[in-house]
């Protein structure tokens, strides 16, 4: 299989008419790593179809909630916190608010030895179409993503939990889970508290 075609940027622009933010780097070994942000997350389906045509393999999907970019003027502003936050929330080039709650979903494709990561932004509470009908390999990563975040993948053929038991509350990466809870208090003071409670409270 060959690597990224020379006109990949043109092909991606044609598939995503709302706009793309494309960049790429080449390693000293000649391996290309390309990034393609989408202005409209719905266009991931058309982009996916284009990549199926190119023989791309979906290697991985990463979801995250990017932190808002730190503005330089924040420290100098003396007009008060409330007024500033009300004024503006930074946005992605496609208009998704970067409020620390929106999702960035990175679809990592491999062509030959090269990487192409297509990035879609979805506001909190939003949804994204499933790529599983196009790429079999999207099945588990999308289920993984749905249990990590309160993110809905539309039209997923089998939206069951992947690793987490259905009894566990979802969106685990959006919550602070104390380590003692995570490991069922197998360490730290919480275990000692449990022992004391079992003995009847007082030490």
């Amino acid at each position, binding site marked *: 299989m060959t690597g990224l075609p020379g006109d990949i940027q043109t092909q991606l622009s044609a598939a995503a008419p709302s706009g793309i933010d494309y960049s790429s780097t080449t390693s000293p070994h000649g*391996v290309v790593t390309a990034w393609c942000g989408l202005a409209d997350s719905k266009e991931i389906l058309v982009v996916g179809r284009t990549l199926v045509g190119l023989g791309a393999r979906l290697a991985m999907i990463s979801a*995250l909630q990017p932190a808002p970019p730190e503005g330089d003027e924040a420290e100098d502003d003396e007009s008060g916190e409330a007024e500033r936050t009300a004024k503006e929330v930074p946005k992605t080039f496609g208009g998704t608010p970067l409020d620390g709650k929106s999702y960035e979903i990175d679809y990592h494709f491999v062509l030959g030895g*090269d990487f192409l990561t297509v990035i879609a932004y979805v506001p909190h509470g939003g949804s994204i179409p499933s790529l599983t009908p196009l790429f079999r390999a999207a099945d*588990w990563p999308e289920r993984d993503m749905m249990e990590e975040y309160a993110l809905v993948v539309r039209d997923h053929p089998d939206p069951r939990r992947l*690793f987490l038991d259905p009894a566990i509350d979802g969106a685990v990466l959006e919550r602070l889970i104390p380590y003692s809870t995570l490991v069922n208090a197998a360490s730290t003071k919480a275990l000692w508290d449990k022992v004391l409670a079992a003995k009847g409270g007082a030490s």
Partner: protein
Amino acid sequence: MTVRPTYTIPVGPLHVALEEPMYFHIDIEGETVRSVDIRAGHVHRGVEYLTTKRSIYQNVVLTERICALCSNSHPETFVMACEQIAGLEIPPRAAYLRVVAAEIKRIASHLFNVGILAHLTGYETLFMHAMQVREIMQDVKETLFGNRMDIAAMCIGGVRYDLDEEMKAYLLSALDKLAPEAEALVKTYRRNGTILRRSKGVGVLAKEQAIASSVVGPVARASGLGYDVRTAAPYAAYDRLKVDVPTLPDGDVWSRAMIRLTEIGASIALIRQCLNDLPDGPVRPADRPDIPAGRAMGKCEAPRGELVYFLKTTGADEPERVKWRVPSFPNWDALTFMLKGAKIADIAIIVNSIDPCVSCTER
């Protein structure tokens, strides 16, 4: 009275043939598997969450603990992503030493898997023999790195170990001891009736199914796909070395075992090339490098195939996100093809043939 034509049997999550817990919900008709549903999550530990609570340097240590058999590949790929963000190039000597560490781990991992195949066919003598041969590489790891599994060889910008003349001579002598043993194992797996009857034509994954499932590593190469990260996207010193990528067309359990056995010979050749060409110079930068804000992809050929890392940093001590996809992750899906139409008695052999790593998959 009608007889129900199909039954459902559970295999796992705890099963004598499984090294780690995984639950297979299997529909059978008589002795034949009709369909399989894989249910995961028994060793899910939330390591991805932990990576965002540790500093980037601590994550080099943490990622080594995701898995035991491919423990070196995790920090190797993670530091490659860090180096990409920092724009670092590793010293030439470190590039060769990374190959040495990776290939030592590959030999030990492959010997373990082909040994387990013998165990599952009931050929315990061959299993014990393969494990004894593997012990040569376990001794090598203990001698060179001070540990038999987590070798702590990687750091951002280079490696944490070096080979002096005495160690090089020791490693070469160990390879001289290993090479004839490995060749003898290849002959046994090629000719032995017990192995052939239980593995030839069993658990077939056709090439188009391999492409559909996006399988990687020896599973892909045994189904005729010649993809290997070491040649497709060279890293470390692989662009300066002759890397043999064996492929086989049949896609059965035997082919997957043969690919691993052949790769052991190829890895021995690679380590010898490295020791012969090993350049002088430093093995890591004098100071711990700073990792600025950025995003990067890392990719390497772990023993089970392509391992992918995504890293996003903000310039803070902790990364904003670390995500990885282990080679076993897509390879599980191939089991739905391999097990369809298989006999109940072959389930364990077929599952083992993808060399599954549950700890890696579930993180």
